[in-house]
């Protein structure tokens, strides 16, 4: 706790009389209410049976978090949060859900069998973390000043002190972009050639699902109907 004490001393803004949990400031009340909303929507997001609703609950939670950022005077972060998370990430997630044919409406098997273990682990981690955090920061006080996280301040800090990581991050983003493209595009060519040992007699070589369907002239006889369903067995294993 000596480290925390020095940190507290460094902040130099201790006013013990004003810091009771029983007499919250207005900021604290708003933070608490929004926090409850965030937590509730997060819980709803991870427990709802409707997959699309989960994504929408996530919007609420992340939006609430943006409000919390604002309350903590980090304006720029809050807007970035709204832009990137609410604007792009959620959209991506919704696309993902749709591309994987997620069922619309209630799906009773949204949770795996691991649910109870997950619950125990989550509760344990929550208990541990909360206990630790409360024990450590019970008396800490944030002396919020205006403009601590404004775009000007953040930009100055970012381009004055954090240029190199920023540029590295842009390279990372580029790599992620290329990776995503490769992953999505390459999958089309991933259909493996049929194994020689698995070929059935009377079926032309190379007539896997894709080819057989698009080129029926190579197998006009009895092989054609069975071709689309059976060859994928060979691809699978």
């Amino acid at each position, binding site marked *: 706790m000596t480290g925390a004490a020095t940190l507290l001393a460094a902040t130099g803004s201790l006013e013990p009389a004003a810091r009771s949990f029983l007499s919250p400031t207005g900021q604290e009340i708003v933070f608490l209410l929004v926090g409850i909303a965030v937590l509730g929507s997060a819980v709803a997001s991870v427990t709802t049976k409707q997959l699309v609703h989960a994504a929408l609950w996530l919007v609420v939670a992340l939006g609430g978090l943006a409000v919390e950022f604002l309350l903590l005077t980090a304006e720029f972060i809050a807007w970035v949060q709204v832009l990137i998370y609410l604007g792009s990430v959620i959209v991506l997630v919704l696309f993902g859900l749709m591309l994987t044919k997620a069922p619309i409406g209630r799906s009773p098997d949204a949770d*795996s069998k*691991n649910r109870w*273990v*997950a619950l*125990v*682990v989550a509760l*344990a*981690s929550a208990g*541990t973390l909360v206990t*630790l955090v409360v024990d450590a920061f019970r008396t800490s006080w944030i002396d919020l000043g205006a403009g601590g996280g404004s775009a000007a301040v953040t930009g100055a800090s970012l381009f004055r002190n954090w240029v190199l990581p920023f540029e590295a991050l842009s390279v990372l983003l580029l790599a992620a972009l290329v990776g995503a493209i490769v992953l999505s595009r390459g999958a089309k060519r991933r259909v493996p050639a049929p194994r020689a040992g698995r070929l059935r007699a009377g079926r032309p070589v190379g007539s896997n699902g894709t080819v057989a369907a698009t080129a029926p002239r190579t197998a006009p006889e009895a092989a054609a109907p069975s071709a689309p369903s059976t060859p994928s067995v060979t691809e699978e294993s």
Partner: protein
Amino acid sequence: MNLALPALVPALPALGAAATLAAGKKAPGLARPLAIVPVAVSAVLALVVALQLGTGQTLDAATRLTPTGGPDISLAVHLDGFSSLISVLVGVVATCVQVYSTAYLKADPRYPSYAALVSLFTAAMFLVVFSGDLIVLLVGWEVMGVCSYFLIGHHWETADARSASLKAFLVTKLGDVPFLFGIFLLGADVHSFRIPDVLAAAGEGRLGHPTLIALLLLAGVAGKSAQFPLHTWLPDAMAGPTPVSALIHAATMVAAGIYLVARLMPVFLQSGAALVVLAVMAAVTMIGSALCALAQDDLKRVLAYSTVGQLGYMAGALASGDREASVFHLVSHGAFKALLFLAAGVVIHAAHTNSISAMSRIPGLRKRVPDAYWTTGIALVALAGLPPFSGFFSKEAVLTAAEHAANGEALTNGLGPASGVPQAAGWIVLISAGLTALLTGAYATRLFLVTFHSPAGAAAAAPEVLPAADRATVVADHEADAPYSPELDEADPATAEPPAMRWPLWVLAVPTMAFGVAGLRPDWLPALLDGGSLRPTGVTAVTGTGLAVVGVLAAYGAWRSATARLATGRPAPAAVGRVPEQAGAPAAEVIVADPGRTLLGPLFGPARHGFGVDRLYHALFVRPVAAAAQLVRFLDREVVEGYVQGSGIGANLLGRAVRLAQTGNAQTYLSALLAGVVLLAVLVAV
């Protein structure tokens, strides 16, 4: 005297053995000369050494071989009349055997190794004879044991040979263990392993435990010389090639035990109890083996049992305190027994069977092998102990020694007090030797008559045992219930034996006939030995010869009556069923006139199987050992291996349990991971 000569005598055959083994595969032509020449040269050298040494002299030379904490082990030579005599015997017999083997094992693919082992065997016996140090003597003693194992198992394709060689090895080793401790005890008492020191200490009565030492040594002697409790290996050893039997029985292995006792006679004279034990051992051995010999069907087994019996004679002479008589009999027996075996080899080659009942049905066997016929006759007369051949004189010497011992005036020839030999030992030996003389005469006669003179062969079953008959029929011909040690041989019965198989017979026939005379004058043979008398005395001569003659006549009479019964068509009393299928007895039993059957009566069956000693040993020792081996096997397989297997199974089960966790479900893994992290965090925080 040049010490190189006595050193060369054992060295030459050993080197010859190595050379034969080395050259045998690459240059088969060299194998025969390499086998014969070193042994023959050794024989000549042994004779030269004997002549140089002369009579009444001893020579001792030693060089320290290795320092030990206790008594030193030295490479020592101890030459005296005994060693001279026996080394010459060994040389002559070994040379004859080697020459004979070149013809006998002509077609054998393993001849080189065989010849090398015979040479090594001879070398080991020379070492035993010449050694002046007990430990070095033990080396030769054990080398002989190993060689006998290999030679008896020469035809290792047959189960008989394998088990016989194992049996010979194990039984002799059983005796060798106490023997080794006897030597150690002797060395500890005397503080030296040198034989002269031992003899001097024994002469002065300085031995601490003479009876214990003598009894321990006797165990080894009984093993090597095939005395009663440990004699069972010798008849089975007939599974080896016949020349090997001649070598083992005549001059080398079995003689070693007798020679050792003769060498250490003063030690044995210190203990009357050991002499009585030796006398009892000898008596049981000679009577039992003579009875067995009378009932055997296998020619070589008859000879083997007769060897056991004659060794009993020698042991009896030793028990009577007279080592001169014992060695005298050893030498004459060596000559005529080697002759008997070599002649038997010729007969077996000609008849293609070991069974004398089968031989009796071969027409004209007598004319087919005239050399073997005559020399066998000579040797059998010597064996029976009839004058004037050597066996008579040596046997009389034994009887005389026993008579003197029984009278309390044992012929120790100054090696110890006459009172050192208990009278009981003398009486035991005397009575059993007389009885054995009778039986020996009987079985010698039976062997000769049944083998060569049976009229049945000319009459009844001739066609089926034509010389050209193949081996299978002949082998099936021997009497079914008789112990039988067949030998693989590929010789053609139709061709006559080569000279190499014939002239050794006559070489050995000379000492068989004439050697006995050497004991008549005190300045001939006795001068070479201890100087006592070897001349037969009147009473024993008449009694012994009379008993032998009675035995011969009884056997002849029984044979005549059996033959007559056969001629008139009446079955022998023992063979009730004439039809083989009904009686279970082969036809051979019916048509052969066997005097042994008549003479022995109800004893015939047990005697044929060695009085069940083998079966007794099987029940007493083999089965418990086999059961113990089973137990050990069980412990090893089930208990010890159980732990090993258990660890493997445990690891396997653990692996299977771990596999259950490997579901492939990432969420499960992650749950475990996070749970662990939380746990660690809690542990660290608290």
